[in-house]
């Protein structure tokens, strides 16, 4: 008759609790466990950091055939989502004469044409600088779109998409330390805005990773650090349950 054994995990709350429990249950040293799971937190940070993160800032992860989330960061998906957001923002900021011809009429069209005269000969760089200086104002509430030439609007979009990966590159030093591979559109920015301090003694492992960014939503990222740790706790819980199930199986028990 099969014997059943409960593999409930209760009372584990903090990241340290889970790390302790995995260390005590598994066979690997605390150093290996710490390296693995701290690395997991950094990987999660990549999945949350712009342009990754998704609409609800829940992280961009790949999915397997069964539709289950894997631990791999969906960098390509993140980049694509970022491009969509950039296109939306640029559209919110600018209106070309072609768009105006479709959307405006009468007095509003005449007003647009009047303002457009001012920007007809504007350089692309000037349009880009204007965008960077004022972009946050275009989000809430939705503003009146500024007239711009089609060429300049395309230039601003291109410039912005080229800059993708600068924020995520802030984790490059930590990523390199934990052996996390990142795509070239992130790695090309190097680690100038990234710092990592590692303190390691016989049994003490501590690291502080700092991502320096001028992104207007940096405050969101700071809050996401806790989210990344919680995600890793979820991963650790799954690992712990699997370890217990394996051990139960070896002992001739059926986990429930």
């Amino acid at each position, binding site marked *: 008759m099969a014997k059943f054994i409960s593999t409930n995990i209760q009372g584990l709350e903090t990241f340290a609790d889970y790390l302790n429990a995995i260390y005590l249950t598994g066979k690997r*040293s605390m150093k290996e466990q710490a390296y693995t799971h701290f690395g997991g937190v950094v990987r999660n940070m990549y999945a949350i950091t712009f342009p990754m993160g998704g609409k609800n800032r829940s992280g961009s992860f790949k999915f397997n055939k069964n539709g289950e989330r894997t631990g791999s960061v969906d960098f390509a998906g993140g980049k694509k989502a970022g491009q969509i957001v950039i296109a939306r923002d640029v559209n919110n900021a600018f209106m070309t004469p072609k768009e105006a011809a479709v959307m405006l009429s009468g007095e509003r069209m005449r007003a647009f044409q009047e303002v457009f005269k001012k920007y007809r000969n504007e350089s692309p760089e000037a349009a880009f600088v204007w965008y960077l200086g004022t972009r946050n104002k275009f989000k809430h509430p939705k503003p009146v779109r500024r007239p711009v030439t089609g060429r300049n609007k395309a230039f601003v979009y291109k410039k912005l998409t080229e800059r993708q990966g600068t924020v995520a590159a802030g984790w490059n030093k930590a990523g390199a330390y934990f052996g996390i591979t990142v795509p070239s559109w992130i790695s090309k920015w190097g680690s100038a805005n990234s710092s990592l301090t590692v303190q390691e003694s016989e049994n003490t492992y501590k690291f502080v990773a700092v991502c320096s960014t001028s992104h207007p939503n940096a405050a969101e990222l700071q809050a996401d650090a806790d989210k990344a740790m919680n995600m890793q706790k979820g991963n650790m819980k799954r690992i712990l349950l699997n370890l217990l199930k394996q051990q139960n199986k070896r002992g001739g028990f059926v986990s429930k």
Partner: protein
Amino acid sequence: MSDVTLSLGVDASQMESGLGRAKSALKGLESQANQKGIFERINNDVKNLGGTFSTLKDQLAGGNIVGALATVSRAGVGMGSLAPLLGGVAIAMAGVAVVARGMWTAMSRAKEMRNTAEQSGLLVTELMPLQKIFGQVGLEAEQIPVVMTQLRASLETLGDPASKASKAFEKIGLNAESFKGKSYYEALKLIGGALGSAKDKTDALNAATEAFGAKKGVKVGQALAGADFGKMEASTPESAKIIQEQGEMFQKFQIAIQNLKPSLDGLFLGMASEIIPALMDAAAKIEKLDLVGMGKSFGKSISEGLTKALELKERLAFVMATPAERKEMQAQKLKEYEEERKRQLIPGYAEAQKAAEPQLHNYPMPSEGPQAARGATVSTGEAKALKIERPESLMSSIAKMGGGASGMGVESLNVQREQLSVMQQMLAALRASTNTQGRASMIDIYGNSDIAVTA
């Protein structure tokens, strides 16, 4: 520019050093056990071990875990060196596991010996004297099957008078008729006798070379010629007979408990999920095995010791269960208790329930209310020992003992509730001990005299 900071850290110094010491001590213990030859011990000291484990069983049954530790230490399996390092119950577990491992080693060797005997066409009782005889001329046991294969090949050619073997054997006074109806062992004895009494040593060597091959023939011939089979047979240990009789059972046992792997890597969760289930499994299977050959009392005591481990496992399971599961478990225990009472009180009830599946174990769960107390089938003392207390000194002691990882930033060190509960279970068991040595050990283990005093 603004900074997003991710800060993480862990300090596992105390936990690492504690586990490191425990692991090295266990390694040393294993090595000691191997050096001392558990196999010989089991064969020669069955009686003593049986007595020791009977004591251990009684102590475990009485909740005297620390006393049981002392008994294990006295049994000479080296558990004393672990006592200051680990919690009492963990050592008791390890003690049982180490002994079980000794049994495992013994049975592995027995299995090897039986395999060697089968490959050689001999019984184990025949192989053992041969090992000694061959050992005198530096031939190892593994070479016996090779020698015997060569002998079988030579004996097969004896029917042909023109064969080299026939001619060589004839010179020492042996022929095909001499071997008729004889086992290989008897054939060896016959050849040994003929070689020893051969007048011409060259003929004897030739015959030996033909019988046992060019490489080992001379050595084997020398060994057999000078061998006193009668004396060797008389000194063959009783274990040879046991191995011959119980060999298959050993093999089955090994397959049955191949998962029995003492692991102290995870003292808390690991202990609950790996060592104990493995022991439970072993306990269930040992009960069905016939270990008469290994000594009835020894096998029985081990079995009962493991059953005790099963109780602890159940207690741990209870501690780790959700409140709903606990209620369910308590209800189950109550039901079992009522069944037991009916069996005891209602004449003929037990017979009527014969068809029902018999229960392997019946023991109490840690009590949190009157239901479990009613379900308990133990003495008041034991029930008292199961009571869970949460003294602050205990928390600080455990935090000191197994500090472990500490989270940085928003997260700070919390003693794991599960570990705490498990430790409390252990302490509850330890408290049941009135043994002076036990109290001293507790101070050693927990570094807190308050806990020892409350014991």
